[in-house]
């Protein structure tokens, strides 16, 4: 008889804990962000003009960000996230780190762009776009 009551209490605990956890989870999912904003879609909009400037639909472009510029400050987590979002936004174009390709994307802050320009700008035609984006076209030597 004692085991029966223990079992009943245990079932009650599971049910109560599940209801509690589901309510708590409902409250916490409201804090994930705004329903009206979609940061990934915004990133895609940001890259839209750059994608239009590229002379191909599918191909390979180089990519640099603040972390590729010696001396420039950057947040490693943000830097990797932006790299992944850029690949997502530019699909089906493949991005590879560096500026060895004919066409390259620079996603740079003001300070990083100044540092990069001082050293490497002469190799490229630079098309500045909104939001710290630059399209770099390698000048044929």
């Amino acid at each position, binding site marked *: 008889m004692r085991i029966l009551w223990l079992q009943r209490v245990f079932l009650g605990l599971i049910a109560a804990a599940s209801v509690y956890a589901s309510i708590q989870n409902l409250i916490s999912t409201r804090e994930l962000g705004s329903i009206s904003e979609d940061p990934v879609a915004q990133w895609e909009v940001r890259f839209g003009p750059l994608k239009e400037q590229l002379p191909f639909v599918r191909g390979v472009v180089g990519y640099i960000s603040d972390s590729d510029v010696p001396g420039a400050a950057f947040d490693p987590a943000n830097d990797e996230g932006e790299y992944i979002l850029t690949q997502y936004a530019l*699909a089906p174009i*493949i991005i590879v780190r560096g500026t060895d390709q004919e066409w390259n994307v620079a996603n740079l802050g003001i300070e990083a762009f100044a540092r990069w320009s001082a050293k490497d700008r002469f190799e490229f035609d630079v098309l500045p776009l909104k939001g710290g984006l630059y399209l770099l076209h390698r000048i044929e030597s």
Partner: protein
Amino acid sequence: MGAVLVFTPAILSGMLLVHILWPDRTFWSIIFKACLGIGIGLGLRSLLYFLYLLILPGHNAFIYIDLVCLGCLLIIAAARELRGGRSGWSPGLLPSLTPTQHALVIISGIVFVISLLSTANYLLRRRQGDWDAWMMYNRAARFVYFDQAHWLESFSPQMDPIFHADYPLLLAMNIAASWEMLGRDSAAVPMLQSALFALACAGLTVSALAVVKSVGQAALGLTILWGIPVFVNEGARQMADVPMAFFVLATGTLLYLYVLRGSAGLMVLAGITTGLAAWTKNEGSVLVVGAAAAVVFAFARRHFWRSTLSFAAGLAVPLAVALSFKLFLAPSGDIVSAVAGGSTNQLADVTRHTLILQYLWSEIKGFGSWGIAGLGIGIIPFLAIYYVLFRSPVSPEHRPAYSAGIAILIIQVLGYYAAYLVSPYDLAWHLSYSSTRIVLQIFPLLLFLTLCASQEAEQVLAPARQPVME
């Protein structure tokens, strides 16, 4: 609404295929088949789209193929129904419930509705999913959809390995197929696909428990599964872990039902779900080994050839497509490259074994926590206590069902363990990033087996009453 419509033919085709292979007609088996049909339909449609792209890239004609498949399955199912007559249908579809069962169903319904709202909340606030969704599955779908004629270039070895172009394509191909049918890349498609797999997984747990145990046990299963936030949230993240959990659970429950009912169609379906797991995630290839071993191990003494051949018949097509993709199209994967590069040296590294076991122990203790202050343990210790309190004797004829399920779970865990051992990544990072999700992949099957091996909730709450079974 458009996103719902583009998934409908695949889901109906899946349901019809399941019904053709297992024409059982009780109420709960119909619900089970409907839930199973969602995953199988989406999985097979993904395979079909992959084959279609190999033959007819850039033609935008997949909708016709999808509808022709549905039409053919509808004709076959209708012909079988007409030939068999309607005498097999239950007189009333809805089974009658005892007051105790009503109470359990109401509690599980409350948990389900609240968690469904959480899923909707999550999906609407993360419309493009989470990190791995943009990095792998939705990204791969965009690579295929935006330049369908040259889709094979999506698997270029030039792509940074971080984007895992080698990953199996079940989710990505379904998204790309749906976008093609819809005529635009709508975020609603991956959102709906994610929700469908989460709902199908919950539905499969409930209906399988109702078929093999009781309505009360099914309600308890739903209360536990959808009462843990990690499962509910994962179902909305647009990643492949809940679909993988669906196929692990489907394989385990189909093998269980095969032991109970003996229909060869159930074993064919188990082969299909195993093959589709390999088309969902790299971990799915471990399920192929685990499920094949489970079939051989559990049915060595009973109907061995019938079981093995039926399983192989279901497994053949999805596994062949998944293997062809891996062998001829996909760039080399991270684990395979690491092994080829000599990471097997890490097998003897004691510190790696220690770290993996520490993380594994931490997941056993903490996975699926309810987030109640002061209660620092997760659902697995609770399930262990539950089993000690509620366990019921397993009849000898049911033992192969448990042997099969337990073999799948053990081999799956060993596969994960081996992958961590040879992983090329920083091990602590790799474990912290993925260990919860790999436990999630096997948790629904673990829950199902535990609840099957226990007394029905009705027997405990109202011992004088016998549960009304369908």
